[in-house]
């Protein structure tokens, strides 16, 4: 490697040293715990080898198998972004402050089910659900409380929201406007991935076609108005949690990505304008090497798709940036402290796979929403991996492993096979209408359950190594009062706002659905008038109708 005179390696070295000047490394020199020097990256004997170049390449270069940035965590750690939301906006605001004080570097909001489904807290559909699984947000008023004393220009916020994503984005923008923070200073990520909702998580409202329109509207709005906001997080997480295999997670997620890019191009957007703003979201399950290979394969597949299939020209369009969450589904209620170990292994895989952002689950999440103490252990897990394990000292440490490279190739090939099948069906929107991915996942999930039943797969503490003594954990309980108080607060907002203005903004949204205009500016007007999530979504429901569960068993 030292005496290689060929261009690619020299060019990369040159480019990387320029990158490092702009993005300084965390340490002057990286050394092991016993003071052994660690290089930024380890390469094969001949880095010019065409096979190495084509399949693996250098970090920060096409096809990005080794990571999207040249120096990865030597420059800066991933964003530690714990998902939080429960009770009222005030309760969650306190958790946000708690997490930021403990070293979390970005926020991530969990909304309660009524908001996720586009209902207000006072809807009959919301009974028993208010504030239980996330924070209750009905109007801009709640957002004002949720982000109280949080600098929107310094902290980025991810919002796990899908059908009403446009409404919540508008609330965030309205809040920045209110506080006089320029729109180009706020940043974050909307989940906004409706295809995976039909496929897996099932928080959908409208049928696929109008949903796709609303998503492309947010792409366009973010490109023009809030350039630091990622308008979508194309999510494999829920697909995996619904019981898919790693290959299915990879394939269906990337096929979803293809569908969004296609829809945006059909709208007339320039691929290089919006592609750099797309982000992804992976589940990190227990199988350590398979998960790392999945992330490496994902980057390579996306780079090829963006470059070859969609003709993107900019490098940033080819780079798949992603968030990871450790696998909630892998956690067990039996012997809950074992979950800390599972989460550690999964988080380590996410880091070895090159994630840009990570949520580690808390040990008590099969029982309830996490307690403060449990969430602190989960955050500390990330900090220990970052600061103590040494895996952040060199880039993509598993490259060149016979096993990892073969797994990466195999996952890519198998996922591509699925993608071809989906192309044959007419793309992911059509495949969803045919319930094809749902059937594939149901099959995989049932097979996995059988393997556990027959003890072909061991879950420690569940079907082997069980113990009689149960562990009792302190559980976070949501006060029954939250529902009453939230409904009262909403009533107050509705009484105090200018209701004529609200009705006018809602009617405008309705009228604009008949045109091909972008709906976001009109939703923003409604939000600023304190129209509620349920009212805005209600108008769209009237026009577009609701999607129904295909009931695939």
């Amino acid at each position, binding site marked *: 490697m030292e005496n290689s005179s060929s261009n690619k390696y020299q060019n990369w070295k040159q480019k990387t040293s320029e990158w490092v000047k702009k993005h300084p490394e965390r340490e002057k020199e990286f050394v092991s715990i016993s003071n052994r020097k660690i290089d930024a990256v380890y390469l094969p004997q001949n880095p010019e080898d065409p096979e190495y170049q084509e399949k693996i390449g250098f970090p920060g270069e096409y096809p990005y198998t080794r990571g999207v940035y040249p120096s990865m965590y030597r420059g800066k750690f991933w964003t530690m972004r714990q998902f939080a939301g429960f009770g009222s906006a005030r309760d969650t605001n306190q958790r946000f402050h708690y997490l930021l004080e403990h070293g979390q570097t970005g926020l991530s909001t969990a909304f309660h*089910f*009524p908001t*996720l*489904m586009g*209902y207000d807290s006072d809807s*009959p*559909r*919301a*009974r*028993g*659900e208010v504030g*239980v*699984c996330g924070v209750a947000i009905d109007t801009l008023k709640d957002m004002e409380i949720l982000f109280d004393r949080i600098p929107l220009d310094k902290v980025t916020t991810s919002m796990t929201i899908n059908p009403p994503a446009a409404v919540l984005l508008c609330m965030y923008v309205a809040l920045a406007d209110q506080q006089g923070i320029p729109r180009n200073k706020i940043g974050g990520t909307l989940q906004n991935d409706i295809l995976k*909702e039909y496929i897996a*998580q*099932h*928080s*959908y409202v409208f049928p696929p076609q109008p949903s796709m329109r609303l998503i492309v509207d947010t792409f366009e709005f973010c490109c023009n108005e809030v350039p630091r906001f990622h308008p979508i997080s194309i999510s494999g997480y829920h697909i995996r*949690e*619904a*019981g898919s295999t790693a290959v299915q997670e990879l394939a269906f997620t990337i096929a979803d990505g293809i569908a969004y890019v296609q829809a945006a191009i059909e709208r007339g957007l320039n691929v290089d304008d919006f592609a750099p703003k797309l982000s992804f979201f992976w589940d990190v399950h227990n199988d350590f090497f398979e998960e790392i290979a999945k992330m490496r394969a994902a980057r390579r597949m996306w780079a090829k798709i963006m470059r070859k299939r969609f003709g993107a020209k900019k490098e940033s369009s080819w780079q798949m940036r992603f968030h990871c969450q450790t696998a909630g*589904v892998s956690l*067990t*209620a*039996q012997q809950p402290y074992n979950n800390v170990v599972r989460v550690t292994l999964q988080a380590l895989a996410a880091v070895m796979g090159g994630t840009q952002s990570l949520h580690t689950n808390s040990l008590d999440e*099969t*029982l*309830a*929403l996490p307690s403060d103490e449990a969430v602190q252990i989960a955050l500390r897990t990330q900090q220990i991996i970052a600061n103590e394990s040494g895996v952040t000292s060199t880039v993509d440490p598993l490259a060149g492993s016979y096993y990892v490279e073969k797994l990466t190739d195999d996952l890519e090939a198998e996922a591509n096979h699925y993608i071809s099948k989906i192309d044959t069906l007419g793309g992911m929107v059509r495949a969803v209408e045919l319930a094809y991915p749902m059937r594939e996942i*149901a099959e995989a*999930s*049932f097979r996995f*359950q059988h393997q*556990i*039943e027959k003890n072909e797969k061991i*879950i420690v503490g*569940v*079907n082997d190594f069980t113990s009689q003594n149960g562990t*009792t954990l302190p*559980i976070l309980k*949501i006060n029954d009062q939250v529902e009453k108080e939230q409904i009262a607060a909403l009533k107050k907002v509705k009484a105090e706002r200018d209701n004529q203005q609200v009705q006018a903004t809602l009617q405008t949204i309705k009228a604009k659905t008949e045109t091909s205009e972008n709906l976001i500016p009109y939703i923003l007007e409604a939000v600023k008038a304190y129209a509620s999530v349920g009212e805005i979504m209600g108008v769209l429901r009237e026009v577009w109708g609701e999607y*129904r*569960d295909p*009931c*695939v*068993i």
Partner: protein
Amino acid sequence: MERKIRILVGKPGLDGHDRGAKVVARALRDAGYEVVYTGLHQTPEMIVSTAIQEDVDAISISILSGAHNYIFPEVVQQLKDKGITDMCIFGGGIIPEEDVLELKKQGVAEIFTPGTPLTGILDWVSKNVKARELL
């Protein structure tokens, strides 16, 4: 010939995590029961009305959203209001132990928490779910 026992598998509330409900539905079907799966996002009213229309012998409910303390008692009450007291109600989900005890007091026959093997559920069903006298 004895008729097959009919079991409704319901997914109430706004939560869409239906992996458990579907796996249980399929296991019950494979074990020889007639299964009526409601699909997602059902209200307690919808579940009770389907149960009555379909003449089921038992209702199995899956809840992961934390809304169990509202939904289970509501289903029990609505059945009672309609004069039905012999329909077995059981379920599963992310439900803390103390809530399980309270729900059992309120008329829920059994609650299966995460990690329960399917064989455990099937055994319980074979012992506890009986064919109702249909009118």
